[in-house]
């Protein structure tokens, strides 16, 4: 049976069903029993499973994440929640030095089946320390898988896949998506980590987007269609492992790529998409790859500044327009050079 539920409740359902199915699964972290820290994503879980398995922790991000890793080494499958991705910076040592390295560093003899759930909490005049999106940092670390669901269906399926995965998985959800409604099966299912989703087919340009930017890309694609431009939209879903095949196949088909990621420009995930496409599909490109990202500035507070700060569908539309402006001369110049 499939019914419509919200992204937030899809996360909640995934956690609940996994905890029902597997005694080794438990939640811990700051605010998992709080009425506001994590939206509705843990509502009712403590009543159902008790305070041992839904452990609202002191503000000790470093040790709490270390606890989760240690428990994972002892046959548990913890989900450690960081209600603001910014707060998880205090746990980066455990995530990147311990969890990420453990399996390789010890010759493959031990593994760390932990989910590190970090919530992007942008907007709402929360300013620089409650709004950040650090997916690029985690995707940079070799031993971590990194997922960012953009739909309720993926929110549930990726969390289940993440908990079942035998590696450390960084699961990044976005507060701006919590109220989005979508079709979600009642039964358990996994969305495979490492597979992107084709959200819209089109032959003229490819927009490769992460998380919330997928929705913006879909809006942009709708408007671009009105101008006669058919946009293919790829939802990355899994930043690592990355579905290179789907992205490259689309880049080769359209020859024009825009990468949209709601984090900073410099050394960001959009840069990785750009480098990968240029390196692997250069012969088929007819325009430079453009990035749509946050500007290289901390998140502001004032609502007028926030409006200027966060990229939206208009920015994607503009990038596509620029790509088309360039593609003619770019192709000609390349032909001439050959």
């Amino acid at each position, binding site marked *: 049976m499939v019914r419509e539920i919200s992204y937030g409740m899809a996360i909640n359902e995934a956690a609940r069903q996994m905890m029902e199915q597997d005694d080794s699964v438990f939640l811990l972290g700051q605010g998992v029993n709080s009425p506001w820290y994590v939206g509705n994503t843990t509502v009712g879980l403590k009543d159902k499973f008790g305070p041992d398995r839904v452990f609202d922790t002191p503000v000790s991000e*470093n*040790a709490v994440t270390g606890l989760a*890793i*240690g428990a994972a080494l002892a046959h548990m499958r913890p989900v450690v929640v960081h209600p603001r991705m910014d707060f998880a910076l205090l746990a980066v040592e455990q995530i990147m030095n311990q969890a990420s390295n453990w399996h390789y560093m*010890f*010759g493959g*003899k031990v593994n760390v089946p932990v989910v590190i759930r970090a919530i992007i909490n942008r907007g709402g005049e929360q300013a620089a320390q409650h709004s950040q999106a650090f997916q690029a940092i985690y995707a940079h670390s*070799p031993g971590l898988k990194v997922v960012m669901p953009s739909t309720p269906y993926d929110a549930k399926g990726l969390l289940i896949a993440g908990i079942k995965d035998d590696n450390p998985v960084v699961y990044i959800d976005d507060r701006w998506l919590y109220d989005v409604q979508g079709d979600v099966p009642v039964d358990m299912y996994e969305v495979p980590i490492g597979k992107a989703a084709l959200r819209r087919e089109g032959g003229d340009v490819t927009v490769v987007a992460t998380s919330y930017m997928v929705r913006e890309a879909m809006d942009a694609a709708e408007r671009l269609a009105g101008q006669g431009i058919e946009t293919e939209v790829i939802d990355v879903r899994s930043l690592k492992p990355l579905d290179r095949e789907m992205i490259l196949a689309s880049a080769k088909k359209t020859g024009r790529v825009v990468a949209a990621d709601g984090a900073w420009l410099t050394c960001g995930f959009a840069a990785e998409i750009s480098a990968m496409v240029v390196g692997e599909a250069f012969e088929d490109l007819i325009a430079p790859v453009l990035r749509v990202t946050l500007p290289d500035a901390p998140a502001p507070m004032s609502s007028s500044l926030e409006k200027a700060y966060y990229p939206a569908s208009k920015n994607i539309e503009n990038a596509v327009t620029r790509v088309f402006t360039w593609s003619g001369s770019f192709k000609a110049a390349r032909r001439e050079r050959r």
Partner: protein
Amino acid sequence: MDGNEDHAMPGGLQSGDRELTREIPPETLLSMYVAMLRIREAEERLADMVTTGEVRCPTHLYTGQEAVAVGVCKALRDDDYIFGNHRSHGHYLAKGGDLRQLMAEILGRKTGCSRGRGGSMHLVAPEIGLMGTSAMVGSGIALAVGAAMAFAMQGTERVAVAFFGDGATEEGVFYESLNLAALRRLPVVFVCENNLYSSHMHIKDRRPADNIPEIVRVHSIPAVRVDGNNVMEVYQAAVGAVRNARQRKGPAFIECRTYRWRGHVGPNYDLEKGLRSKEELESWMARCPIKSFSSELMSKGLLSQSKANKLRAEAMKEVDDAIAWARDSPMPTETEVTHDVFTSGQRNVDG
């Protein structure tokens, strides 16, 4: 500095724990002696191998601290977990880790315990409950608390032990971990090897007072200070702490006063740069944990000089054999450089 002041027993560990002295069976005492000899011989051979350049990875030697690892690990079961640090050859061996795989690891061989990916600082032996040693100061403490939480949730009697130095008590994660362990009354034993130095710095240059157990007690965790060069004293404290943890009476903390003979890293003694004095080193060498224990065993009639000589020769031969085996082992092949970044379908196998 004298390491023996303040042996008062705080709340939690009962004075009765000390009476175990008389109850330690002779075979346990002898096995502790052999375990200490093995660690000493392994470490001193490794010191030579660093000097000759055969061992090249950063190697932090345990010489002088043998009584701590052995005293604690003899109080544990195979399926208890231990977590170590950058100076963990002793923990690995005392818990029962394979000597040949240790030597192979330090020589970067494929047959090493971490298949040549970890080296001296990153040892693992899940089959005997060593789930990994981390070279990040203090980080392993939180992992031990997490393993203890798992054991408690699983309803087992297993116990987790964190080994760390006095320097680790200056990391924030130490305090966070103490608080969490006390809050949840987790079956974890914190073993602080206070060898007075954090890398090149003496404790008096890092702390206003040398009073780590006092700091721990305010976290509602019983803490004792023991002579870390006296294996029986360490063992007694560990037996009490582990028993309480198994009975789910909560965590415990043992500060073991000890001293590393070699410098922070490698075979030198850290005398040449004025980091510590010859007098200090010699006073601690005079309190050699192995020598004093052998005297104790001899006075009990459990050991003769000829038997001591024989046991030492056996330990030396075992180390020689392990090194020869390691030298004969293959290096990892180039294709392995990206193996095992991720796993598929693995569950940890331990104890």
